């Protein structure tokens, strides 16, 4: 297999003809899509549309049956969460990402713990872990009395999301994938998380924002990608279609579009 050279003009993430089966279930059907840095992408679709499967490939959890994935123009051949983290791809999910049984400081550095050597033995560097997570607690608007040593189970849903987003920024990630980041959050917390998503984009990161709520994401996103039954059915810049038009696309299973645009039958 030839080695694909690095290409500076290549999109940050490019996926070509991705196919993935789970037994008889065809989860991804010939999906091709590419994403650039400094964009906030709204990835929308119903349950089972394949959006979560797609991002699980990007975050190294699933290996596709066929098709290619390129990161910064370089072909990705191995799929493991550890590699995705090495590339700087962080996935933020509602139910995953923080261990309830550990303190904020321990969670913050989970998997990349800093160490300080005592007599040559690498012990955890708690000072560094506390300092960095305290900074995030203060910048990302958690309650005043929350400390880095508190167990994560004491935090609200919005505070948890803030910690995860703060962690993505701290470790200088290039891609932040947010999977339904505002589920079960209060109105104010939702606004806060959405603001953070836009800040990440403004800092030049690629943000892939997955949701059911087309109206919410239409306000934030630069581009909207709609998936249906494992296929990409729509990929438009935000100005090309209104939220209502896009909702109509989702409602009709991605097959019918308003009269001003024709979609070729696949």
């Amino acid at each position, binding site marked *: 297999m030839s080695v694909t050279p690095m290409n500076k003009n290549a999109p940050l993430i490019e996926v070509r003809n991705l196919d993935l089966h789970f037994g008889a279930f065809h989860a991804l059907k010939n999906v091709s899509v590419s994403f650039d840095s400094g964009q906030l992408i709204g990835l929308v679709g119903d349950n089972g549309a394949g959006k979560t499967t797609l991002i699980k490939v990007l975050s190294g959890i699933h290996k596709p049956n066929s098709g290619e994935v390129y990161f910064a123009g370089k072909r990705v051949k191995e799929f493991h*969460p550890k590699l995705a983290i090495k590339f700087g791809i962080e*996935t933020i*999910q509602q139910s995953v990402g*923080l*261990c309830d*049984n550990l303190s904020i400081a321990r969670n913050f550095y989970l*998997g*990349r713990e800093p160490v300080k050597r005592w007599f040559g033995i690498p012990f955890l560097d708690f000072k560094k872990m506390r300092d960095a997570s305290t900074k995030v607690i203060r910048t990302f608007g958690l309650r005043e009395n929350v400390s880095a040593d508190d167990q994560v189970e004491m935090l609200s849903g919005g505070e948890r999301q803030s910690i995860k987003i703060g962690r993505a920024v701290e470790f200088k990630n290039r891609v932040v994938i947010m999977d339904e980041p505002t589920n079960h959050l209060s109105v104010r917390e939702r606004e806060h998380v959405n603001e953070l998503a836009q800040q990440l984009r403004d800092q030049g990161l690629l943000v892939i924002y997955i949701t059911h709520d087309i109206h919410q994401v239409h306000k934030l996103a630069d581009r909207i990608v709609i998936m249906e039954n494992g296929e990409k059915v729509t990929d438009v810049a935000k100005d090309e279609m209104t939220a209502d038009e896009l909702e109509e696309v989702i409602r009709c299973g991605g097959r019918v579009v308003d009269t001003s645009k024709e979609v070729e039958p696949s």
Partner: protein
Amino acid sequence: MITLNTSAFARRPDFGAIVGVIMMFAVFSLIDFSGWWSGSTLGNILQFTAILGCMSIGQAIVIMAKEIDLSVGSVYGLTGIAFITLEADLGVPGAIIAAMAIAGGIGFLQAMAVIKGKIPSMIVTLGGLFAVRGLIYVWTGGSVRSLPAESRAHWLTQLFGGELFGIEAAILWTAGLMVVLSLVIWRMKFGNRLLATGGDENTALSQGIRTDRVKIRAFVLCSLLAGFAAILTLADKPQTHVTLGDLMELEAIAAAVIGGCLLSGGRGSLLGAVLGAFIITGVRYELISLGAPASWYISFVGLVLIVALIFNQSLIRWAGNRA
């Protein structure tokens, strides 16, 4: 400020076991002061606590990773028998190394079956419990074996089975292992990843942690500690029998649970596991010294386990309300 510190202390996983030990001392002092405080009773209790405690530390580590190891009693037996049997050919150092290698190997095989075979550890290690016990019967043919006098005097045998400043070596070894492994669990990378793997495996995976490797290490460590407990036992009293270590796996699990390990993973304490072993052993010896039939002992372990769990649960709730 003081209330904050006490509630932080009460939230320690081993708080229940600490209170339990204090209560045990109080109750046994009240009902049988001279018997409980006699040097031989406490000496025996501490000696056996050290051996069960060594095994319980390993069990606690596996439980923290949200797995369980039912095979430790059989591994303890096989390691002990391997040590005594192989000593004739390999000498004391060689036999100890070979016996520990067997223990670690069993732990590794079971871990692979759990990780690669995707079989629950409860089932794999239940199989291990039977299979290894069967090996003991096959290997020994039911015979009793023992070390020759010159091997009992070997410095390594004395290092694990002798005394230092009048303290049984096993007590010092288990105390040392508890301190070192507690540092590994609470102050090093491996511990942070072990607690994360047990507390929330999907999160651990999402942060790039190789949870399979973490679990393999936990199982191997657990088997090695069970094997080491057998070395500590047989270096002191070098005689084997086919039931060596029978039911000890259940005592080790009980000790770990009394010590604050949650079977749901991610929470526990090695100090608690050793204190749990102390409570179980203390109850056993005191029952015998009070003249209760020895056959009651196992029922009392069960009772102590259930009472301790209820106690731990209400403590967690109480500490949670005060936070």
